[in-house]
């Protein structure tokens, strides 16, 4: 690639060299900071990265605007921390305002939540699955694997660069949504931290799921070798995993049990996540609420079961971040295992 190469070339050949070498120098001059495989992966997938970047910017702007509007409404009506039916004294008489707030903003807030809930599956579908499957389908992996770089370095670049982009985009969205949540989440909007969409869009959870989506897509593509099939499998797998975790989530941490004696009013704070409730007996055993029907001889039934009070199993709001980090840790570990499997498949197949 030396410029002295022109001396030996014919005049006509020299023209081609000039064009190419200029291009080479431009690239080397730092116009494109990426080198090697990273450049290739960026060049191949820059469109989808651009779409993700645009979606992130749009989402961030939308969240910021929404946050401003919500904060203005809440300040004007002094309804911070008030729910529609609230026991907090300073919230007295704010019910109409809270209802109005929810009518105006709750659907918007839920839209963002659902967007963040679906984003990991979409990332797996449109970034993860085609990443390798399209190469295998078109045979272009042979072009890369017959160059000097090995298959493992190629796979590493194919996973690492999209993972970084996804990490940056989802972290930014999660942070912006967190700020929006601080203002309009929980009591005032009635979308609590423990709701499925809320939990999945707060803190590390959407980031972890997005990386899982990417890993699922890459592995599915590598194993199935067909873009559309791997997209379908990725979507199904992400739906199954996210549903499974909604069932598993309450059990990730020990619950806090609150007992109420007979006659006490059983009432938890609004932001506590009630997982189970029932009656407990004098010996400490538990009786499900369904054991005694209120319309028959209720008191006799309670006596028969030796019921001495009510219990409530709950995750208080202080459990939110530990739960979120535990779930994210498990999800990230799964993503890591899938990535290791992908590397092993690649090594077995292509050395």
């Amino acid at each position, binding site marked *: *690639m030396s410029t002295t190469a022109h001396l030996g070339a014919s005049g006509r*050949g020299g023209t081609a060299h000039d064009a190419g070498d200029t291009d080479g120098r431009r690239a080397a001059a730092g116009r494109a900071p990426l080198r090697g495989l990273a450049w290739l992966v960026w*060049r191949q997938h820059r469109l989808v990265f651009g779409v993700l970047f645009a979606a992130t910017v749009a989402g961030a702007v939308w969240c910021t605007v929404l946050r401003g509007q919500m904060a203005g409404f809440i300040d004007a009506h002094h309804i911070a921390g008030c729910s529609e039916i609230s026991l907090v004294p300073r919230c007295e008489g704010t019910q109409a305002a809270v209802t109005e707030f929810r009518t105006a903003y709750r659907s918007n807030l839920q839209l963002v939540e659902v967007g963040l809930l679906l984003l990991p599956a979409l990332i797996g579908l449109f970034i993860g699955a085609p990443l390798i499957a399209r190469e295998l389908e078109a045979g272009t992996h042979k072009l*890369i694997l017959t160059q000097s770089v090995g298959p493992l370095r190629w796979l590493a670049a194919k996973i690492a660069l999209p993972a970084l982009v996804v990490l940056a985009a989802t972290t930014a969205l999660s942070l912006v949504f967190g700020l929006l949540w601080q203002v309009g989440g929980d009591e005032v909007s009635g979308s609590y931290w423990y709701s499925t969409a809320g939990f999945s869009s707060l803190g590390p959870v959407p980031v972890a799921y997005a990386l899982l989506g990417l890993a699922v897509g890459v592995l599915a593509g590598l194993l199935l070798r067909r873009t559309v099939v791997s997209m379908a499998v990725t979507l199904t797998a992400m739906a199954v995993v996210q549903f499974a975790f909604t069932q598993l989530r309450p059990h990730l941490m020990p619950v806090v049990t609150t007992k109420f004696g007979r006659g006490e009013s059983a009432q938890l704070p609004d932001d506590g996540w009630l997982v189970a409730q029932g009656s407990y007996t004098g010996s400490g055993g538990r009786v499900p609420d369904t054991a005694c029907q209120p319309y028959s001889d209720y008191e006799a039934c309670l006596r028969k079961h030796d019921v001495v009070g009510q219990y409530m199993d709950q995750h208080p709001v202080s459990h939110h971040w530990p739960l979120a980090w535990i779930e994210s840790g498990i999800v990230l570990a799964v993503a890591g295992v899938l990535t290791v499997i992908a590397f092993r498949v690649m090594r077995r197949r292509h*050395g």
Partner: protein
Amino acid sequence: MYRGEATGRASGHTAIEAIGLGKRYRRRWALRDCTFRLPAGRICALVGPAGAGKSTLLALASGLTRPTEGTVRVCGAGPATPDGRARVAHVTQGRPLYPRLTVAETLRLGRELNPGRWNQRCAEQIVYDGRVPLDARVGTLSGEQRTHLALALAFAKDPELLLLDELPPYPGRAGAGLSRAAAGRVPPSGPDPLVRHRIAALLLARAAEHGTTVVLSSHLLAELDGVCDYLLVLGGGRVRLAGEVDDVIGAHTLVMGPRRGDALPPRIAAHTVVEARMTDSQFTAVVRRQGTVAAGPWEAVEPSLEELLLAYLRAPDAPELIAPSAEPVSPRLRRRPGNKPGIPGMPRNGPSARPDLPPVRHGPPGGAAHTEHDHHSGKGAAA
């Protein structure tokens, strides 16, 4: 960048050495018990019917796939090692390229992915000679332009061994993605003989300049004559023929004569008959000589490469022939009971000591020396 004589022709270096190589896809063996050696510096034709395992063998040699059994080494390195990858270029079937990249970007891909080996000047020269515009998207190129671009990527890597699957470029536009089956039905006249000749000329010129060993698979037998000086014929997933083109041709005789009865004349049938065909009045047989062919009412000549290859392709049960230069140097790991070393009529060690066999040639590759070759010279045929 130039490797000089170290790996050049006439050296004892080995470009490919396969021992008991086999590859199974699910239940079907694409290649089985494949043992041969390709000396460095040759232009080797890889011939075989569809499904004979040509592409599989090339993919194993370039490290694209891993063998199910056996071993293969290229230029003294494992194919799936960094060393092996750097030394081998493989232009795969269908010429996979990224259609949305421009030609210049595709060359940049080669530069970025072959650090330390890339020869941009060589790549641009090939692309320029093929009239491939640098700013065109790869998806808009013609089949010939795609092949030029693929060859530019391969040669600019400065490989010691170049594997080229399917020598003739596919007809039609880029991205049409002819299937294997469709590619196999390309008529012998081909898409454009001029294009094929241009590609072959480019290949030979570049290979001669850099001392590159080339393996090209093709089903167009007529194209190979005068291009290749080494032969590797696969059939039924096994090696059927391996050796210098001249050695292999010299070991055979094409006998034609009047037909008497249903069988070949006994003095012809005494040799190893590769293939015999009978018309109403004539017989034509390709035999591997055991001694000399006795004189008789028949004409015995040296077959052309095409005649020989067709005979072997038409007779899948003909015994295999592995010339001494194609015998692995490394000890065989595994030998099947019936697989005798060497072949009758051929010396076991070293170049030919027999007067009726042509000496092993170590001339430069390329068309010039070979096109002058007259395979019907009768050399060593009817003594």
